[in-house]
């Protein structure tokens, strides 16, 4: 270790205790972000320590990336600077849980799976089921705006987060919102943290509303020869009185990936519409009946109800779409594109053309008829990168010009070096920068990772 590094390590040890500062290359490798390794990783054990670390970092102008379960660190541009990894995984308590009020307060480092076990004991859940549930932390899920199949019914963190406590880039502990399900007191600063990738503040507490577990749930799969049939089926669901929890569509390649992943036998050559309903038996029967008839009208080849094991498995696959694509090839480039239902056919057609022109395989998941996950799957060798870069760039341009909102959620570093994973900033850029300055005036929090170079 160099003298500089040694003196830094000892100063950091004063803040959090020597056992909670890592500087060895082996431990630091785990904190790499886009190939950059920090000089030290810190594991604070209290909010006060988080604040002290950020005060120190701010004074020393050290760049800090807040880190939870390390499951979503692939999102964002490579950091401009990266000195300290601030690992919040030791802040992992449930601070308040009032089952009868359906409210919850947690520290950021608790994993989704751990929390879910706590809630299930009381017959409740938090509808944020993310990828990597065993490792993903609530702080990370919020900061990365991780998505979930049940958003069709429950929305996203924006709809579930009641309030938060956080520490700004100057080490100031602050909070907004509240702990009750309804509240309009003060400015909703916590909303800014959702999807902010740690560029504004380090989250130290999150308050959510919870939901009762449904008595029963059932998953249905309809198979279609082409995307238009699957879309028509989903639109019919949207326009019906039915209230499913999940409405996801898979293209044949995605279905094939899931089949390979699960060893199952989901139709490999078909587009699949996956619908999950929840409620009492009568409600499920009604969904089964109506969905079957809607699937016939949309010319489905098949319509089946899954058994509970299959359901759990497929639900897991839907959660894990991006990692499964990444498992197929480490060069997987996954777009997350928010589009209105009416824009989907054109987007799918353009994707088909682009993928064909660049000879790239493409797995697609359309979530809740509103967010498209599109994974370009090149062979994992650098020779494929130029095609991948070109295809990604053209797709990005198509999205931006046709008014849908794209970003690249995961891709090889070579792609990030060649193009921006974010769409170009819009008229909101000036206020965005001013807000960044309010929260993090010295630009020490995850600098360069966010949209618009923030």
């Amino acid at each position: 270790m160099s003298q500089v590094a040694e003196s830094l390590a000892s100063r950091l040890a004063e803040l959090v205790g020597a056992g909670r500062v890592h500087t060895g290359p082996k431990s630091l490798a785990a904190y790499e972000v886009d190939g950059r390794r920090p000089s030290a990783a810190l594991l604070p054990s209290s909010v006060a320590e988080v604040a002290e670390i950020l005060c120190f970092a701010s004074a020393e102008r050290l760049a800090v990336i807040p880190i939870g379960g390390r499951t979503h660190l692939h999102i964002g541009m490579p950091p401009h600077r990266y000195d300290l990894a601030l690992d919040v995984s030791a802040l992992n308590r449930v601070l308040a849980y009032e089952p009868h009020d359906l409210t919850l307060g947690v520290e950021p480092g608790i994993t989704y799976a751990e929390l879910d076990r706590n809630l299930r004991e009381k017959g409740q859940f938090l509808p944020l089921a993310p990828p990597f549930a065993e490792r993903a932390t609530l702080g990370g899920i919020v900061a990365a705006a991780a998505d979930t199949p049940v958003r069709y019914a429950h929305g996203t963190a924006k709809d579930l987060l009641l309030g938060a406590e956080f520490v700004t880039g100057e080490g100031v502990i602050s909070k907004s919102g509240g702990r009750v399900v309804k509240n309009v007191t003060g400015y909703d600063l916590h909303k800014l943290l959702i999807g902010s990738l740690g560029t504004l503040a380090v989250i130290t507490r999150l308050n959510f509303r919870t939901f009762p577990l449904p008595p029963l749930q059932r998953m249905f799969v309809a198979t279609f020869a082409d995307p238009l049939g699957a879309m028509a089926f989903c639109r019919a669901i949207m326009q019906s009185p039915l209230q499913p929890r999940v409405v996801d569509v898979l293209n044949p390649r995605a279905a094939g990936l899931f089949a390979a992943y699960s060893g199952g036998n989901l139709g490999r050559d078909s587009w699949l519409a996956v619908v999950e309903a929840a409620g009492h038996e009568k409600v499920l029967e009604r969904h089964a009946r109506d969905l079957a008839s809607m699937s016939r009208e949309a010319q489905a080849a098949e319509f089946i109800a899954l058994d509970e094991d299959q359901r759990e498995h497929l639900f897991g696959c839907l959660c894990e779409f991006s990692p499964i694509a990444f498992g197929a090839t480490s060069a997987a480039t996954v777009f997350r594109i928010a589009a209105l239902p009416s824009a989907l056919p054109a987007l799918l057609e353009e994707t088909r053309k682009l993928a064909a022109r660049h000879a790239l395989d493409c797995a697609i998941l359309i979530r809740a008829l509103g967010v498209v996950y599109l994974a370009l799957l090149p062979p994992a060798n650098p020779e494929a990168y130029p095609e991948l870069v070109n295809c990604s760039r053209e797709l990005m341009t198509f999205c931006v010009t046709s008014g849908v909102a794209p970003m690249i959620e995961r891709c090889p570093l070579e792609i990030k070096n060649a193009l921006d994973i974010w769409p170009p900033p819009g008229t909101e850029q000036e206020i965005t920068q001013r807000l960044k300055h309010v929260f993090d005036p010295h630009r020490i929090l995850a600098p360069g990772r966010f949209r618009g170079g923030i």
Partner: protein
Amino acid sequence: MQRTIIRELERLLGSSGVLSSPEDLLLYEYDGSVEEAGPDAIVFPRRKQDVVEIVKLANRYDLSIVGRGAGTGLSGGALAREGGIVLAFSRMNHILEIDAENQRAVVEPGVVNLDLSRAAEKYGLYFAPDPSSQKSCTIGGNVSENSGGPHTLAYGVTSNHVTGLEVVMPDAKVIRLGGRAMETPGYDLTGLMIGSEGTFALVTEVTVRLLRLPEDVRTLLAIYDSLGDATDSVVDITARGIIPAACEMLDGWTLRAVEAYVHAGFPLDSAAVLLMEVEGVREAAETQADEIIEVCRRHNAREVRRARDARERALLWKGRKEAFGAVGRVSPSYYVLDGVIPRTKLTPTLLRIEEIAKRYGFVIGNIFHAGDGNLHPLILFDHRDRDQFRRARAAGAEIMQLCVEMGGTLTGEHGVGMEKNELMPLMFTETDLDLMRKVRAAFNPVGRLNPGKVLPLGKGCGETRLQPFPQSAGGNA
């Protein structure tokens, strides 16, 4: 206000677009709250460009601007606390588009809440937030206040239903936040803007999500001899996994006042009524209604009525929706409070409110969204008696303090405005408030937009200094 400024405004908007006579100004000194503050002029833009020009003019003459929808707000949000211009959006009231396929509507801020739902009805759609004032309040006002309503228990408040905004910033630049799609990469500026009470920017266009009208609605009225049994029912219903679309409660005093006026059929000797609604697919509504009836009976409801048709449903709701009007008949004035508590704390909180009422010598009626713990105590007083007014406010502040103490918040849907800005330290530390001040300054650096609202006024302005309760709000600090 100088004659030249009025003339300049008239050149911009036509003489019918500007009001400045003393009698006109008087009308704009009020909104739905007990607050008063008068502007120097009221202007009525018809299009975005008018708003831009008004902002430029205000910048030139260093005038403040207060946006106003229908003036139904209950915290003084639309009052010109420091004079200046009231910018009334009532003529920017066009529904620009209903995109039924994508379940979106694009509207100008002055569109009346209920008009949007009516226009969407032919597509089987509606706009979910339904404040009691929905016949007159505007979508722009709903955005500013992040309005709720009885049905927010299941469907959420305004911020859950807005995907995009166009706003005019205090420097007269027009910017777009969010969009039509479900999400936008970047900070959630739409979410931040909603509920900022007109202190960040002026909203000129709103893109909202429309929901499908439910197939079936079941409306139930449960009548109780004890308030405690009614509140226990509420807790038990949610404990069983039922989230009603609405769950409203009237206490004994209020239901008697309402009955005398509306004749909704509330028994005069009862202690509380619970009005509940479940909706969705027929099978779900049916099962949930049965379960709710069972829970209410178990908690000693003396009677549970089911509305058999739309007429009966309307009658049951009439008692709730016209409750404020009914109270208006029996008291010269009333002060509607708005506080939130965890729903499990309903009974102790109501007892404490009764104590406060006795101590101050007021009648306090309670009517509230029981399902989400959103209380609306009504303090009856005579505003002509300044001492009564002062004491009513003091009693109100005490009830707010109680809500925060119970782990709740200062406002669930009416906003902070100029009613509660000095109470903010009950929930937030000086550091929290300072960050909020800086965020406001990032949008509105010289405080031109809606000055004197939301946050406590600066030191030396006679503001009350209150200690926050450590267990309140977001943090555990």
